[in-house]
């Protein structure tokens, strides 16, 4: 078992998949000569050359669409967006092309492509660079959406995404790239569509994905000191969603707090809260709670930007309210 960063785990997955399958190639802004805006692709240009590690101009619509075209013509592109914020410029190609070509062609076309890059708030980046697009992508049938929060899951899920026959949107995070964790040295895949229990517990279920996982685990530790054992579910896959894992946990605990750093209106978090409320209605001892990002554009000021995001303190408070205890 090796300890590695989330960044290096992604790089290892790319390297192994490119070595395994000559149809796999990476393209995006700064992926080659710069070694990756966040160094995920470090060393790959030297190893695979410019045809397979392809620098692009700043033209998200154009190169994302070129990825879609390469995919329908038999290649397996990995398109890196410097951040998901810039993917708004490419949304037509993801939503109107990648997600629909199989369906509109009656199954004659396949679009095996991965769109990946950092998503969600980092620090001091203000409104245009600090938003989560998880809900935008997850809304769309035809896409798969993955949001790993540990190095091992980042590695195993990226490999699964590259091998998948359908378009996969992959959510990373600037702050998570430096996170470290154990990753087995032997090759493995993490299946798409399976949630993980990040921490077992019997009193309340905390459901989350991506970067807020750490805050959720931190909150669970603080709650344990108060005699509350929280079970933390890491969704990992937003579409398809592992509904069975959610319901199994909530049927055991009877309480559920959903944590999603996106805005609260029509979000993955609000959808999960709806599903749990519907499927576990008779077993719930409290309303399902949602700890989300605040419903505002992200401010630059650090104090304000932290106040706009889910935190361990906010999660802990939501759990205590779900238990009808003093906050």
């Amino acid at each position, binding site marked *: 078992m090796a300890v590695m960063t989330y960044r290096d785990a992604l790089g290892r997955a790319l390297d192994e998949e490119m070595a395994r399958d000559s149809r796999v*190639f990476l393209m995006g802004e700064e992926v080659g000569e710069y070694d990756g805006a966040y160094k995920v692709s470090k060393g790959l240009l030297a190893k695979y050359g410019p*045809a397979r590690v*392809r620098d*692009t*101009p700043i*033209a998200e*619509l*154009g*190169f*994302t*669409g*070129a*990825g*879609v*075209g*390469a*995919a*329908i*013509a*038999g*290649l397996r*592109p990995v398109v890196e967006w410097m951040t998901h914020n810039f993917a708004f410029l490419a949304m*037509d*190609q993801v939503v*109107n*092309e990648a997600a629909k*070509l*199989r*369906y*509109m*062609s*009656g*199954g*004659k*076309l*396949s679009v095996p492509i991965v769109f990946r890059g950092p998503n969600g708030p980092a620090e001091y980046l203000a409104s245009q660079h600090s938003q989560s697009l998880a809900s935008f992508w997850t809304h769309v*049938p*035809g896409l*798969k959406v993955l949001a790993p929060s540990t190095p091992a899951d980042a590695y195993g899920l990226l490999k699964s995404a590259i091998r*998948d*026959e*359908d378009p996969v949107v992959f959510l990373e995070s600037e702050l998570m790239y430096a996170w470290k964790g154990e990753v087995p040295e032997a090759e493995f895949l993490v299946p798409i569509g399976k949630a993980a229990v990040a921490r077992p517990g019997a009193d309340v279920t905390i459901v989350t994905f991506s970067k807020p996982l750490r805050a959720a685990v931190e909150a669970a530790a603080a709650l344990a000191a108060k005699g509350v054992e929280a079970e933390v579910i890491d969704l990992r896959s937003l579409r398809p969603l592992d509904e069975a894992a959610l319901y199994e946990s909530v049927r055991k605990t009877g309480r559920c707090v959903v944590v999603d750093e996106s805005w609260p209106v029509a979000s993955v978090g609000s959808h999960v809260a709806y599903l749990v409320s*519907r499927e576990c209605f008779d077993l719930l001892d409290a309303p399902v709670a949602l700890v989300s990002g605040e419903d505002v554009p992200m401010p630059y000021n650090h104090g304000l930007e932290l106040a706009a995001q889910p935190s361990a303190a906010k999660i802990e408070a939501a759990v205590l309210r779900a238990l009808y205890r003093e906050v």
Partner: protein
Amino acid sequence: MDDSPVSLLESMQLIRAFEEKAGMMYGLRKIGGFCHLYSGQEAVAVGSVSVLDLERDYVLTAYRDHGHALALGVDPGAIMAELFGKATGVSRGKGGSMHLFDPARRMLGGNGIVGAQIPVATGVALAQAYRGDGGVTLCFFGDGAFHQGAMHESLNLAKIWSLPIVYVVENNQWGMGTNWKRVSAEEDFSLTAAAYGMKGLSCDGMDIESVRDALREAVGRARGGGEPSLVEARTYRYKGHSMSDPGKYRSREDIDEYRKRDPIAALKGRMEDEGSLSEAEWEGIVSRVEAKVEAAVAFAESSAEPSPGELYTDVYAGARVAPLSAG
């Protein structure tokens, strides 16, 4: 393919007759939604496709796509069945008029979003260059798409990556109800090629030999050395933008002027003058084409509707997805 004049004439006449019939079927409400007829532009699709190698080349176009599909030899019955929304349609009833797909005949789609096929086609050419298979991609779009950022981003990518692609702008002079001169900084689209360091060509889209000359040169350059080109084919559509557009923004005189230069009549007249087409041969073409179109309608009429279960197939690879429960 057989690119003898008589074969080209028959191919154009098939498109003309098919579109006339499609218009009638639309009037009879056998076809719904948007239906964009290609009448008047036949020389562009037939002339362009006639210089391709259909073992390795690909074609992508926009929503006015019946003509390109027919020129590629896609079965008229399967196209008509698609317009009727039947299970036997080329896209199994899920695409309709704007989304005809038949990879076996090198047809990678129609596309309903103006200009969206241009990055996709660029990616198809990228796959051809990546594999080094000698294939060329032909990307058709209209004067309306010319001002989309997608087009400009794509031309830039094609040049910097030396892609084997020919961009054919079918300037039928009207982007829905807007004359191209009103919205184009430069009326001669072929000049724009220079901004992307590629060769620009102009041809008379009402004259199939002019189209073939330009495309032969452009395809040769693409296949030989990965040199992309932009070809403007000035043409004219006889009908409105779609079946729901009466086209009142154009004068009768304007349309009549172009009908005098009708591409089918022009080729037929030339062949008659040369003595290479007898009256009997022309009658043979007309009756064969009529029989094909009648058979296409009969096939579409007698074909089954898609089964209700088809709603949930082709969303992803493999088995059908389970519908979300209504709750």
